[in-house]
């Protein structure tokens, strides 16, 4: 009754073992209940877990790739979650935390090609019509201005004009405070002096 579905792409091979949910009328070729999964990345330790782990893994990798295609290299996930990905100089650091106590997190580094292999392997899983699971995955949406760092850029763009205006305002105030009367008196006295000299 158990069914195993395999997804291969590049260095990634994912095996999903499950059962059809007969209460929902699934056929024997479909999987409605995931019992376990195994991910084999060539050159790295084998990973396995339950449906929740796979869902978190899938969501984190696809979100990271979505950001990466827009040129955004940010950390996806948090240290407390089962998986989080941090971009390093030339690679991508995957921190995988085991749900078993006392097991140290596994850290693996993938290069761009390996990351894309894994993404495409997960794309296959996501698109498979035989997996009838309601994955809690974010839709591919345009990123927000803040995600792209555009708000910071806009602030930087405003900084110098605002500074210029402020300097102009300050200098105007200073000039306005210079007493005019004294200078007028000086002019009058010099004029008087010159008149006296002439006389």
């Amino acid at each position: 009754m158990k069914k195993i579905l395999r997804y291969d792409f590049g260095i990634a091979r994912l095996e999903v073992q499950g059962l059809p949910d007969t209460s929902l009328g699934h056929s024997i070729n479909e999987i409605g209940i995931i019992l376990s999964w195994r991910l084999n990345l060539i050159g790295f330790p084998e990973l396995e877990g339950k449906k929740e782990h796979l869902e978190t893994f899938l969501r984190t990798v696809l979100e990271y790739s979505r950001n990466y295609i827009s040129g955004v290299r940010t950390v996806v996930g948090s240290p407390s979650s089962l998986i989080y990905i941090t971009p390093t100089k030339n690679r991508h650091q995957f921190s995988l935390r085991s749900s078993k106590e006392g097991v140290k997190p596994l850290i693996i580094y993938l290069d761009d090609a390996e990351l894309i292999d894994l993404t495409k392997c997960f794309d296959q899983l996501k698109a498979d019509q035989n997996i009838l699971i309601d994955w809690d995955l974010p839709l591919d949406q345009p990123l927000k201005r803040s995600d792209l760092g555009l708000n910071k850029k806009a602030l930087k763009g405003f900084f110098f004009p605002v500074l210029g205006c402020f300097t102009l305002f300050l200098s105007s105030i200073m000039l306005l405070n210079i007493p005019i009367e004294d200078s007028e008196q000086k002019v009058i006295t010099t004029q008087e002096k010159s008149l006296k000299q002439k006389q």
Partner: protein
Amino acid sequence: MKRLTINLIISFQPREFISKRAFQRLDLLLLAIESLDTNASQSIVFAIDKLNLQNYFPNKVEFWKLRCYNTMRKTSKNGSITQETLEALITLLSFMADFFYPKIRDLLSSKEPENIKNEKWDVFNTRFNELIIERLNIKRSIVKKYLLQDQSKFYRELVITLALASGEGGKARLKASLQDPIR
């Protein structure tokens, strides 16, 4: 109140169409595909037939005319393309990226010997620069920037975009990224 309602309607409208900058990126990605293989332009014609996209791109000339909506081109034209044509172009690009994925992967893999990888990148860069000079208006500052800036980073970003845009899953990713706010 009326003005506020109008503003809200405008801001909540779905961004179905892409900006000029996004179309420029799409055309650059097609140029990148042409730089991967000397026969890529011929492969694009076969792909159009295979994907049944003849309604949108009936022949090479029409396809070239469509790409002229890229304002960076030597002979560009103003206007906008329909949503269906844009979808067809994204489908074609994702298919081509998938078709050339082994070549793209070779460029991105760190496992390749350094000298072989450098050689492959040199071939790609030379061809891409030739295509830019041949087809784009190099008097425009943005095109000059492409030729003068840190090319390895710029080309790598384009190739990564192609890799992530390949296949069906990649198509959705690419479409969403083309609708990002303009940088």
